[in-house]
């Protein structure tokens, strides 16, 4: 192939990717603006824009404007920030974990993150009074989130430690250990549910179905700091993850430090998903749906897929949250139910249309 044609091809591919990113970003912006306006209190599109940019204009606020602005800034913006961050985390970690496991069916839950978080969340709900008495009332606000995070981290540490063979973590052992830990944590959560009172049982069930209702500026700040610092390094593993798909030993032969790659990807994914699950509960299907769909309609190159799944994850979760809080308003559906109910048929439709590419 002539050099000029090769350069043209590569330029065309880059332009295609840039256009795809821009399209995704535009879609995310639209989703966010629509989400900001919709809910129990409807705010028209131009009103949303006007109220958001009000501090920069010198126009005074009316009484109605103040009410609408309070709804927007104190309820909707933190919630949408939550959805954007958590969706981005679930999307990118889904891609990274699938890359590490060399399996398009893998997701962060496979290494015990969700199950560990669920067990510790249930534990903290059932023993809330004793734990507050032990740790002090200061922790009561974040007890559930903190416990879920610790649970996720402990589960992954156990799975990772078991998977180490001759100083190297073995992917097959990691999957098997993950299945065992998932089963064990699932049984322990079941035991907690059995011991729980009626109200506690409702809390456990509600938490395990996921919800964005607890979004506040304070929790959004914690979530933003941890998730952004864990997600940014993941963006740089695209090239190594591509080589990893050739097989661990082949990647190593080509100069990839596979040991470090596995540790970093698992560590950053655990931190990011752990903190997300801690604040929102279990949100099923996004980590699987987003990378898979992008692979079917775009490319399998992880250098492109990681940033794309970051944006697409945010779009999917914002849309799911929009549905969750508007479909039966003024009541709210658990977001995990919406992601699975809407995500699964959409995913199946794409799968049927594009199955030949698999």
């Amino acid at each position: 192939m002539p050099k000029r044609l090769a350069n043209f091809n590569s330029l065309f591919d880059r332009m295609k990717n840039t256009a795809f990113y821009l399209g995704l970003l535009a879609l995310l912006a639209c989703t966010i603006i629509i989400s900001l306006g919709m809910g129990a209190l409807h705010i028209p599109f131009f009103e949303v824009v006007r109220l958001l940019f009000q501090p920069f204009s010198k126009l005074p606020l009316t009484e109605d404007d103040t009410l609408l602005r309070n709804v927007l800034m104190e309820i909707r913006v933190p919630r949408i920030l939550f959805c954007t961050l958590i969706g981005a985390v679930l999307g990118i970690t889904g891609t990274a974990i699938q890359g590490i496991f060399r399996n398009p069916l893998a997701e962060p839950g496979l290494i015990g993150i969700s199950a560990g978080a669920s067990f510790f969340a249930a534990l903290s709900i059932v023993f809330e009074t004793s734990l507050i008495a032990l740790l002090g009332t200061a922790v009561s606000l974040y007890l559930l989130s903190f416990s879920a995070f610790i649970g996720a981290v402990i589960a992954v540490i156990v799975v990772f430690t078991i998977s180490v063979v001759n100083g190297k973590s073995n992917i097959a052992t990691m999957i098997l250990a993950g299945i065992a830990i998932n089963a064990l944590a699932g049984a322990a959560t079941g035991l907690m549910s059995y011991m729980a009172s009626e109200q506690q049982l409702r809390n456990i069930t509600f938490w395990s179905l996921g919800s964005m209702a607890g979004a506040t500026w304070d929790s959004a700040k914690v979530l933003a700091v941890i998730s952004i610092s864990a997600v940014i390094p993941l963006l740089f593993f695209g090239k190594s993850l591509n080589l990893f798909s050739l097989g661990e030993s082949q990647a190593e032969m080509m100069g990839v430090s596979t040991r470090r790659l596995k540790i970093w990807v698992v560590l950053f994914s655990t931190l990011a998903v752990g903190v997300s699950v801690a604040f929102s509960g279990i949100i099923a299907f996004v980590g699987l749906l987003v990378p898979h769909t992008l692979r079917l309609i775009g490319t399998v190159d992880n250098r492109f897929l990681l940033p794309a799944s970051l944006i697409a994850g945010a779009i999917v979760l914002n849309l799911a949250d929009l549905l969750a809080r508007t479909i039966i308003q003024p009541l709210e559906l658990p977001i995990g139910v919406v992601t699975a109910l809407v995500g699964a048929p959409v995913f199946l439709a794409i799968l049927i249309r594009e199955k030949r590419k698999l």
Partner: protein
Amino acid sequence: MIHIQSLNYAVKSRTIIKDLNLFVDKGEFVSIIGANGAGKSSLLKLIAGEWKPDSGELRMRGESLHSLSMKEMAKFRGYLHQSNSMDIPFTVEEIVAMGRYQHRATGLDEAIVAECMTLCSLDHLRTRSIRELSGGEQQRVHFARVLAQLWDVEGGVLLLDEPISNMDIQYQHQTLAIAKSLCKIGFTVIAVLHDLNLVAQYSDRVLMMKSGRAWWYGIPNEVFKQQHIYTIFGIDSHTQVNPKNLVTQVEVVPLVYDIHEINSFHRQQREEDRVLVDSVIS
């Protein structure tokens, strides 16, 4: 270039490589041949640094393999594995471009990838998914990837484990000819091969292996003797040197089995048929 001395490797109590010595000079094409399980691929894995030997010395380009990291080795050593299955459907171009991982982006990468694809006749498959390709085409893609890894390297080492096993005759010759041409610019090639005639045509030296040991090492005309081939593979053959190009040709005496001797079910049926025919005649 590659200097192996008293190399030993065992898994649990099973010896894989036993007291093996080998010297490969810069610019040489060395083929490793031997029966299945003789230790050919294991030796290549040890040379590539994938496995660590139990004892012995292994030096490459004057440096001990122990002192080199995988990253350093990947800058001058390309290794094509025997099997290259991929679950994720990357395109041909994406896979060949993976060969450039260890090199700093110089702006030449795209041209190198394009050149390697053209050389391996992959241009028309550029955007095709690897999973849509035949076994031979997939082997060519991975060969092109290893070429892209070493394309702008001086004095590279190319380790090929059965690189042509699924290819048709044209691409078998093409692949080996490309490897051979690299030797002319200072590359060293070590390949595990099975076709003795191709080995004789393209190799400068041949290492014959038996039970993890070096049975014979020398130029093809020296190695391809009837008795050596019988010892290694347990088959009868005729060897002769082609007077036109002085390349040894190996002709294997075909094996013939009597299916009725080895298949008891068919033997019994034949006997029953015979009894039936006899009874009809009588």
